[in-house]
């Protein structure tokens, strides 16, 4: 609804407040007068009226002219249906590349996710005033700089969509492995990211990366219950109770991955980052145990991913799979080449520590665990690393 009104009135504040006012009116009137025959239509009509009232109040000078123009908005509905189309415009506005990443995240959670400023502030462990200011500034920029409410043109859409996907995945990741605070997993954020992922998938069902992103999040989230132990310690994939995984989410994620494999086989675009990551997680979640995982397939998928994205983090994750196929010493040699790039990253030291442990090099392993513990921001991960370090022989 916010999206629809924003398009019509060209102003996010007006759209948001009019929507809120319409809901307040509904709460007051429906119990008294009964729920109208078309509640959705009633809300839109009421919000539209409220928005027009608001604009009239705010600028009396040319209110009549403006209102007349807006009331005569009879834009024909587009094939996807006007409501979905408006939400999609709003997605692209909230994730516009001219806005800072933090502003995109806050705006997306507020306007698309419907989270309150307090909820966003709590999720990101920053003060409410900071979030409120980020949102206010972003909205002011959208207005002053004329950031359009528009689905980008065909030539730009892939690049712009990549920006939208990264905002959603950023929200998911922060929820899944919180970088600070006391909660190891922030379910509010992972749930919200999945909801946004589903929304994108509904709006753009044929986009491979959108499908891949949703599948990826579902397949990671399916393991949530087994990922932190009762004592609040992170449980790594090889030690997780696979019986506690959410089979429904896994089935849904696998179906999406299969859909993409079929589409690519039928001559579609080659898979991008999210589809490859989803496929990797599909292989993990298809295995009855860590030992029975098809590690060579995982290495092959990481090879394809490294061709798209040669980032050191991709090579680090690939090395974890290499350790299972070719042994820890081969993996360690690969990882040590990444030392310069990843020295400040806790997962680099944690992976190194584990490989050194498996090679019986306890002293070096201990030092690597120490570094990993010092760099890890997540409490469950620190607890896990500390136990592994303390279990080292001699």
């Amino acid at each position, binding site marked *: 609804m916010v999206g629809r009104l924003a398009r019509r009135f060209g102003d996010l504040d007006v759209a948001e407040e009019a929507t809120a006012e319409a809901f307040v009116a509904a709460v007051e009137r429906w119990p008294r007068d009964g729920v109208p025959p078309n509640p959705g239509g009633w809300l839109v009509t009421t919000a539209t009226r409220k928005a027009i009232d608001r604009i009239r109040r*705010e*600028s*009396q*000078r040319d209110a009549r002219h403006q209102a007349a123009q807006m009331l005569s908005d009879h834009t024909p509905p587009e094939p996807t249906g006007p409501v979905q189309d408006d939400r999609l415009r709003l997605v692209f506005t909230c994730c516009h590349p*001219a806005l800072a990443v933090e502003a995109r995240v806050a705006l997306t959670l507020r306007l698309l996710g419907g989270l309150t400023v307090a909820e966003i502030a709590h999720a990101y462990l920053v003060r409410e005033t900071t979030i409120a200011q980020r949102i206010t500034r972003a909205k002011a920029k959208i207005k*002053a*700089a004329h*950031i359009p409410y528009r689905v980008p043109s065909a030539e730009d859409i892939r690049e712009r969509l990549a920006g939208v996907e990264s905002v959603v995945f950023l929200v998911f990741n922060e929820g899944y492995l919180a970088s600070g605070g006391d909660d190891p997993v922030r379910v509010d954020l992972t749930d919200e990211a999945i909801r946004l992922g589903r929304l994108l998938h509904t709006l753009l069902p044929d986009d491979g990366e959108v499908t891949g992103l949703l599948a990826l999040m579902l397949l990671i989230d399916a393991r949530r219950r087994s990922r932190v132990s009762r004592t609040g310690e992170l449980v790594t994939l090889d030690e997780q109770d696979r019986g506690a995984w959410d089979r429904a989410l896994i089935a849904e994620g696998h179906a999406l991955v299969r859909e993409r494999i079929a589409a690519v086989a039928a001559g579609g675009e080659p898979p991008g980052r999210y589809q490859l990551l989803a496929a990797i997680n599909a292989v993990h979640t298809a295995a009855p145990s860590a030992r029975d995982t098809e590690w060579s397939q995982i290495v092959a998928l990481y090879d394809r991913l490294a061709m798209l994205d040669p980032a050191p983090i991709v090579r680090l994750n690939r090395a974890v799979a290499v350790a299972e196929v070719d042994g820890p010493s081969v993996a360690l040699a690969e990882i040590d080449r990444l030392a310069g790039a990843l020295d400040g990253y806790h997962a680099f030291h944690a992976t190194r520590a584990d490989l050194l442990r498996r090679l019986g090099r306890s002293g070096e392993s201990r030092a690597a665990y120490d570094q990993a513990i010092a760099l890890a921001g997540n409490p469950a991960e620190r607890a896990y690393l500390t136990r592994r370090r303390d279990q080292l022989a001699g």
Partner: protein
Amino acid sequence: MPRYLLSVHGPAEPGELGNYPSQDAMLQAFADTAAFTERLQREGHFVFAGGLAPATTATTVDGHGATPVLTDGPYLVAKEYLGGFWVVEAPDLDRALALAAEGSKACRGRIEVRPFQTEDSFPHLLKP
């Protein structure tokens, strides 16, 4: 239609070749910049454009008091100063950013895109 300032910054005291590695590179950049400006005119985006003399030639004037106070030099002391700009009209920021990307390529500099204020920017001040 919304207006935007596309501004290019350059070194405080550009040498003979400005920022360019060679005379040829400089001339090519000038030619590309001129071609870009012509395109803006052809496509109806152009409002105004200009290159500025070095910031060392600026004078800052404070007319607040009884007599104006003149200071030799720019308002802010910085390593880089505004060196040139275009004022363009574009339907929205996406179009303005696309123009800026082309202008940046032509002049070999980073471009700041900043919207001009419009009447909508301060409706509360214009209320009767």
